[in-house]
C-alpha cells in the first residue's frame, strides 16, 4: 500500500493565538498536582503494575484528556484521584491538600451513569447538596438551576429509568457539578453512548465547561473525542502502564465539528494514532488457515 505522503503540519506547531492561550493557562493556579504517583496491584512489588510513576500539573479551568488503550491504567488513575482506590506511592494534591478518600471537592462522572434509581432526576442532583447539609428549599432551587443548565428542567420529576443514556449522563454531570467540585473527573463518560448521542454530548459538555468554573479530567479511548475536547492530551501506553507524552492540543477554540477535518486536527490525530497503536501491535499477523474458495474477491 503506497499513498502519496499527506502534507501535515507538525503536531507541535501552534498558531500564535493558541500558544498565547497555553501561556495564559500555565499562569493560572494549579488545581491538581500529581507527584510521582504509581500503582501496583498485588503484594509487595511482585504484582501487576497498573501504571508507573507519573506527574502532572492541572491548571484551573483546564480541560485534560487522558487517552490510552485498555490496560494502560487510566481508569485506575482517575479512581485514585477520586479517592476510590489507594495509590502505591506518590501523591495527588488538590489545591495543595493531599487526596485522602473520596470527597465532594472532586466530582466524578462514571461510564455507567450511576444515577440513584429511587430518586427522581431532581432528587439525584440534590443528593450532594443535601449531604453537604443544605436545607431542602435551597437545595431544591439550586438543583433546578443545574437541571436548567443541562437542559433537563422538564424532566426533573422523572425517574432515571425513564431517560435515555445521553439524558442520564447529563443528569450525572449536573449532579456532580452541583457540588461545585474543584475538579470534575470523567471516566469514559460517553463510552456507552451511540456515536450520534456521543457527538451531541461532547458539544453539551463544551458548553457546560464554558459556563462553569470547573477543571476537567476526562478519560477516553476515542482519539477524536480527545482532540475535540482537550486543552492537553495525556497519552498513556500499556505494558507497563505509563505516560508516553503530554500533548498541547494545537486546535484553536472555540471548536466546531468542522475542525475535525482541519490539518491541525489530522496531524494531532495521526500523532495520537502512532503513539497508541504502536507498529508491533497493528502489524501482528494471525495464523489463518484458508477456508475460502472465493478467490481474490476479498483482499
Amino acid at each position, binding site marked *: 500500500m503506497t499513498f502519496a505522503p499527506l502534507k501535515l503540519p507538525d503536531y507541535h506547531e501552534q498558531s500564535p493565538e493558541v500558544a498565547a*492561550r497555553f501561556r*495564559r493557562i500555565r*499562569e*493560572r493556579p494549579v488545581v491538581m498536582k500529581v507527584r510521582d504517583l504509581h500503582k501496583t496491584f498485588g503484594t509487595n512489588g511482585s504484582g501487576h503494575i497498573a501504571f508507573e510513576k507519573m506527574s502532572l500539573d492541572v*491548571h*484551573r*479551568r483546564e480541560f485534560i484528556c487522558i487517552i490510552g488503550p485498555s490496560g494502560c491504567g487510566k481508569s485506575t488513575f482517575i479512581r485514585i484521584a*477520586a*479517592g*476510590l482506590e489507594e495509590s502505591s506511592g506518590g501523591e495527588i494534591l488538590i489545591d495543595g491538600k493531599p487526596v485522602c*478518600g*473520596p*470527597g*465532594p471537592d*472532586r*466530582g*466524578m462522572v*462514571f461510564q455507567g451513569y*450511576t444515577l*440513584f*434509581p*429511587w*430518586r427522581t432526576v431532581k432528587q439525584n442532583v440534590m*443528593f*450532594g447538596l*443535601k*449531604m*453537604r447539609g443544605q436545607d431542602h428549599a435551597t437545595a431544591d432551587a*439550586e438543583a433546578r*438551576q*443545574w437541571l*436548567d*443548565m443541562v*437542559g433537563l*428542567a*422538564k424532566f426533573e420529576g*422523572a*425517574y*432515571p*429509568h425513564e*431517560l*435515555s443514556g445521553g*439524558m442520564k449522563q447529563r443528569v450525572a454531570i449536573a*449532579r*456532580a457539578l*452541583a457540588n*461545585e467540585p474543584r475538579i470534575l*473527573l470523567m471516566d469514559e463518560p460517553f463510552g456507552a453512548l451511540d456515536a450520534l448521542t456521543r457527538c*451531541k454530548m461532547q*458539544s*453539551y459538555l*463544551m*458548553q457546560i465547561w*464554558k*459556563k*462553569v*468554573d470547573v477543571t476537567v479530567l476526562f478519560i477516553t479511548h476515542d482519539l477524536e473525542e480527545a482532540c475535540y475536547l482537550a486543552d492537553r492530551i495525556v497519552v498513556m501506553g500499556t505494558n507497563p502502564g505509563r505516560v508516553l507524552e503530554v500533548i498541547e492540543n494545537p486546535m484553536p*477554540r*472555540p471548536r*466546531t465539528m468542522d475542525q475535525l477535518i482541519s490539518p491541525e486536527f489530522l496531524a494531532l490525530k495521526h500523532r495520537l494514532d502512532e503513539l497508541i497503536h504502536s507498529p508491533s501491535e497493528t502489524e501482528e499477523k494471525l495464523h489463518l488457515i484458508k477456508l475460502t474458495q472465493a478467490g481474490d474477491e476479498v483482499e
Partner: protein
Amino acid sequence: MGLRDWLGLRHELPQRRRLVLVILSFVLPLAVWSIISYVPWIWHPLIRVTDPGGVDYFMNGMEIDRAAFARESANAVKAGLKAPQGYRVNPVYIQPPHAVARAFYTAFTSPPLLPTEPWLYQSLGHSIRTIFWGFVASSILGLPLGILCGTYRFFAKLQEPFIEFFRYLPAPAFGALCVAILGIDDPPKIAIIFIGTFFQQVLVIGNTVRKVDPALIEAAQTLGAKGWRLLFNVVIPATIADIYTDMRILLGWAWTYLIVAEVVGTMSGITYFIYQQARYRHYDNVYAAIGMIGIIGLTTDMTLAWLGTVLFPWKRRTRKAKQTEPKTLSPEHQTVSSVLTGAAHPESAPANSNPPASNLAGESPRPITAKA
C-alpha cells in the same frame, strides 16, 4: 394460529392468551376434581345402601365397599332373599366442589357445636394474629440484622455462620422446648413462627443488601456521603424494594409454619377448626378451611405486591418513556448547535458579560470568576 404461537420458546404471549391460560390453570384442577366427584363410574369405590334387602347387617344410608356389596348381594340372591339396592359414592373425605363451595359460606354461618369451640372467623382471626406477631417479632430483629450483615463484613462474619447452622434446625423440633419455656398458649406458637422465619430472614436480606451496586456507593462517596449517611441514603433505599419482595416471600414461609405452630401446646386457630371438623366428618368444612388459608395468603401477597408498586415507583418500568424521548430532545438539539457556533469561549471573549442566549445557558449558579 399455529402451535408455535402458543409454545414458541420464550415467545411472548398476548394479553388475551395469558388471561386464558391463567383461568385454565385454575379450571383444569377444578375439572379433574369435578370429574372424580360427579362421574359415577370414575372411582366411586363405595356403595351407599338405599334398601338393605335380605342382608341382615345392611342399613339404609350405610356405605360399603363395592366388592363386599357384590358378595353380600350374590349371597342374598342365592339364599332366595331380596337383593340389596344402592348407588356408587365416593368416600366422605372426597367432597364434591359444590359442597366445598357451599361450605365456604356455611362454615362461617353455622355456630360451633360445642359452646367452648370458636366460630370460624374467630379461628381465622386467631391464626392471623399468630402469624402477624410471629412475623413482626422476627422482622424487628431480622430486618436490621440482615441489613447490617449485608453492609458490614464485621456483622456478616459475626452472625452468619451460626445462623447458617441454626436455620437447618427444623422449627417444629423446638415445639416441646417452646411449650416448656413459654407455656401452652400463644407465645410458643409465635416462637415457632419466629424460629421458622427469623434465620432465613437474616440470610435472605443480608444477601439482598449485599447485591447493592457498588458503583452507586462509589458515586455517593464522590458526592460527599460517608458513614451512616451512606447506609441510610444509599444502601437502604437502593435495596428497599428488593427487601420488600423478600419480606413478601418470607411472609409466605411464615404461613407454612402456621399449622405446625398451632399444634404446639393447646391446639388453636384454623388448625383446631380443621381437626375439629374432621372429627365431626364435616370434610366440606375441612376443604373450605384449607382453601381459605390459600385465599388469605394469595390476597395478602397480591395486595402487598400492588402496594409495592405504589411505594416504589422507580421499579415500575414504563416502556413509553424511550419512545417519546427523541421528540423532546430534537428542538433542543437545534438550539444547541446554533449555540455552539455562536458561543464565545471565555478565552476568546474574556469579558463574559454577554452570555449567549440559549436554553442551555440558563442561570449559571456559579459564574466564571477565574481569569488568569
